[in-house]
Each structure stands twice: as C-alpha cells, then as structure tokens.
C-alpha cells in the first residue's frame, strides 16, 4: 500500500499537472460543445431546408470521424496547411466540436420532446415564434436533456484522454501517468492514480448534473 502512495507523493507534480491540464481541456471543450451544439441544434430545426441540411452535415461529419483522426487533422493537418495552430487550440477545439455534434442531437430531440400543444398554447397567448422558442421550447428542451447531456459530458471527459496520446501530446492525466510509468516502471500504480484523477473529474461532473437535474428537470 505504501508503495502505491509513494508513487503519488513522489510524482505529485506530474499527477497534479496532468489533472489541471485535463480539467482545462474538458472545461474549454464543454463550453465550445454547448455553444456550438446549441447553434447546430437551432440549424437542425430551422425553417429553411438548407440550414437544416447544413446542421445535418455538421452532425454527420463530426460524429462519423474518429476523434483521434479529428485531433490529428486539427493539429498536424492544419499545421501542414500552414495554419500555426497551437496544441491547446487544436485539442480543445477538436474535442469541443466533436462533442458539439452529440450535444446538438440531444438538444434537437429535446426540442421535439416539447409537445406541439406547448407551442400552440404559447402562440395563442400572443407570443411570436421567436419568443415561443426562447421562452417555452428551449427552456423545456434544456431541462429534458440534462440527463443525456450529463452522459455526453462524462463521455467527453473520458474521450479527452486521447488528446495526450495523439500528436497534440499535451501532458494530461493519462500522459502524465505514462511519463511516471516510463520513469518508475510502476505500471499498476501509475495507471491507478490516473484512474483516480479521471474519477475525480467525472464524479464531480456527475454530482453537478444530478444537482441540475433535481433543480430543473420537469415532470410531465
């Protein structure tokens, strides 16, 4: 047991640094995923066929390309094309845009889960379509999608581990554990602490979503 804790205490810098890198990655990617996901969801339900198609193309391309390929394209690909993109921008951007496709789909289904009667009730009170979307449909859609959004966020946190493996090679939790492992040859210990690091973040996210769920989810 003490060997287990020795690995942690002797490499606290690496593990702590890795935790911080992963945290920054997932927080940045989360913001992008929610913002872009909402915009794409709006495109997917837009009155214009072309806008809907545009949203569809986004979702299909980002969902159907493996994250590792996206990360490589976002970093090595863009750099080869002459865009001097940095590790952080490429990592957060690719993970965020990838996750946004899932967020958009969940939001879209959330919008469809809002009954037609809600829209008609709102219109019959004199609200415009835009007001109806903003005050009646979207708030309800967001509330119904809190649980699936939580699952997407957990998946995103775990997916972030690929960033350290890819060419972007940021020293996130997993990468830091691998550095410690390469240095100490203590494989089991290093990866166990990596697992603990990811658990810290995923459990925190789970608790946050449970809180939102209790607070906002509406029973019908």
């Amino acid at each position, binding site marked *: 047991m003490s060997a287990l804790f020795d690995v942690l205490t002797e490499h606290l810098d690496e593990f702590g640094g890795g935790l911080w890198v992963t945290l920054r990655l997932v927080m940045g990617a989360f913001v992008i995923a929610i913002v872009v996901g909402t915009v794409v969801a709006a495109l997917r339900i837009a009155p214009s066929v072309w806008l809907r198609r545009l949203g569809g193309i986004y979702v299909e391309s980002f969902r159907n390309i493996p994250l590792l*390929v996206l990360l490589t394209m976002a970093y*090595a*690909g863009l*750099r080869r094309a002459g865009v001097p993109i940095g590790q952080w921008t490429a990592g957060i951007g690719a993970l965020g845009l990838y996750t946004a496709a899932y967020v958009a789909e969940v939001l879209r289904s959330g919008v469809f889960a809002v009954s037609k009667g809600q829209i008609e009730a709102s219109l019959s009170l004199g609200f415009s379509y835009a007001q109806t979307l903003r005050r009646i449909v979207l708030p309800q859609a967001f509330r119904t999608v809190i649980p699936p959004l939580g699952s997407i966020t957990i998946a995103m946190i775990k997916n972030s581990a690929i960033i350290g*493996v890819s060419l972007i*090679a940021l020293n996130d939790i997993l990468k830091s554990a691998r*550095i410690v492992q*390469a240095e100490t040859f203590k494989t089991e210990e290093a990866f166990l602490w990596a697992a603990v690091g990811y658990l810290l973040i995923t459990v925190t996210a789970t608790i946050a979503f449970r809180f939102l769920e209790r607070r906002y989810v509406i029973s019908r």
Partner: protein
Amino acid sequence: MQKLRWRWLTALVLATGMVAVTACGDDDDKSSGSSTTAPARTFEAGTTMKKLQDAGTITIGVKFEVPPFGQKNPASGKVEGFDVDLGQAIADELGVKAKFVEALSDNRIPFLKDGTTDVILSTMTITAERDQEIDFSDPYFVAEGRILTKKSDDSIKGIDDLAGKKVCTALGSTYEATLKKQAPKATVRPVDGYSDCLELIQNGSVDAEATDDVILTGQIIQDDSLQLVGDKLTTEPYGAGIKEGDTEFLAFVNEVFATFKSDGRWAKSYEKWVGQYTGEDRDPPEMSLKEALDLST
C-alpha cells in the same frame, strides 16, 4: 494500453490512414523468415528455451516505425530491420517461429514483465535503472545520441542552443532524462514514437528531435530537408531485454549474439539496414554489459 498508431500522410488518404490504425493495432505477423533446416538443439526441461520449443513460437517485441531497426514494411506488411534480423537469429537457433509484435518505448518493459513478449529488441539502451526491472544481453549495437533539426533552421548548432526550444523525443526513452540534464531550459515533448516526432518537426510544432543517431538517420533517409547537428550527447548501447532472473535464457541469447557477431551475419545485416545509407563502416561492438551499465551511472 492504446496501441493505436496513426501516421499522418495527408488528409486526403484518411481512409488509408484508418486501415493503418487497425493494421498496426493488432499485429499477427507471421514469422518473417522460415526456420533453418538445421536440426534444432535440445534443451533441458524447465528452461525457457525448452518451453519456447514446445510452444513452437517465440514472441519478440520490436519497433514498427523506426526504419533501420524495426519497421513494418507498408508494402509487404512484414516487419524488417536490424533488430528483426537479430530476433530471427534467436528463433532460428531454437528452431521455432518468430512472432514480432510492436513494442513502444513506454510499454516494452511492461510487456516483458507480464509475459506478452519473450524478448525485447527495440532499440533499447542499456541503463542501470532498466536493469533493476529486467535483464540485459550484451550490447549488440552502440548508437550515439544526437540532435536532429531542419536544414532551414540555423539557430540550433548543438545541445546548448536548445534552451527555450521545443524538443521531441519518445515517451519512456533515455532522452527525457538526458535533455533534462543537458538542456534544462528546453521544453520536452514526449510522444508515443519517433514517427510522431518526425511529423512534429516537419509541421513545425517542435524545433528539434533528440534520439539515437541511427534512428535519426532513418528519418533523414525519409526526408532530406532534415540534418544532424552538434556533437554526440550520449553513448547508447543497445541490449536485448529479457525477463529478470532468467539466467539460462540470457546466456543462450548472449551466445546467439556472439555467433551473430563473429560469423559475418552482423556485418551483413548492418550493411543492409544502416551502412549502405550512411556509407559508414562499423565493427560489431565489443563493449561488455558492465561497461554499458557503467555508462549510465
């Protein structure tokens, strides 16, 4: 652990790239050469040699992306290189099939410890630290640590110029420590393998790459806009890795290597994989394991 290796060729060959991921991910490569016709030697029951003969296969961990030593030939799908020749020599002596699996710098020692591989021949430098975990054969090749840069970059002429620069090396290689010591102000980017370093130096993410000269030479063969700079940083004697404490097997491997060096196969293999490109002649190393270990302390 992940073994996904993806090598950026161009965005246009995405599909090909995906095939490469799968192909490199689980390699079932058949033996790259046939067994010798000579009758196999017999070994005492209980020895690793006997167990391997009973199994009919020896699993050897090599690099798949380090051209002169271990590279998966994209055309044939076979793994080939100097390390592979040595591994084949061991298999031939046992009269068994050689199965080559990819061993990265950071997973090769775990592979050995958990029995995934029987021997590691993956450009592994003999160090006292690693010697705590596994056993090393006598040095079979002595490389030198060098720095690789772009020819167009004249700001780096040696190790002292690496301060403030980004330097790539393989995760789990000796160069992480070497760079920390000799160029403490450099930013080290440890990646999964040297092909990643090649990509990063080509796309401008890093300024230099530090590793063994033979590996870097392989990269210059692929891309002649790169060059070696500065003096040698380190001496890197390569040894085969064997599970800790298996003295009989270690003695056997050392015996195979000694013959390999003395009967001309070493020189032939060297010429084929290294010499013809560098135009440099070399003799088989005479360094002992003890000398190699002393170098690292």
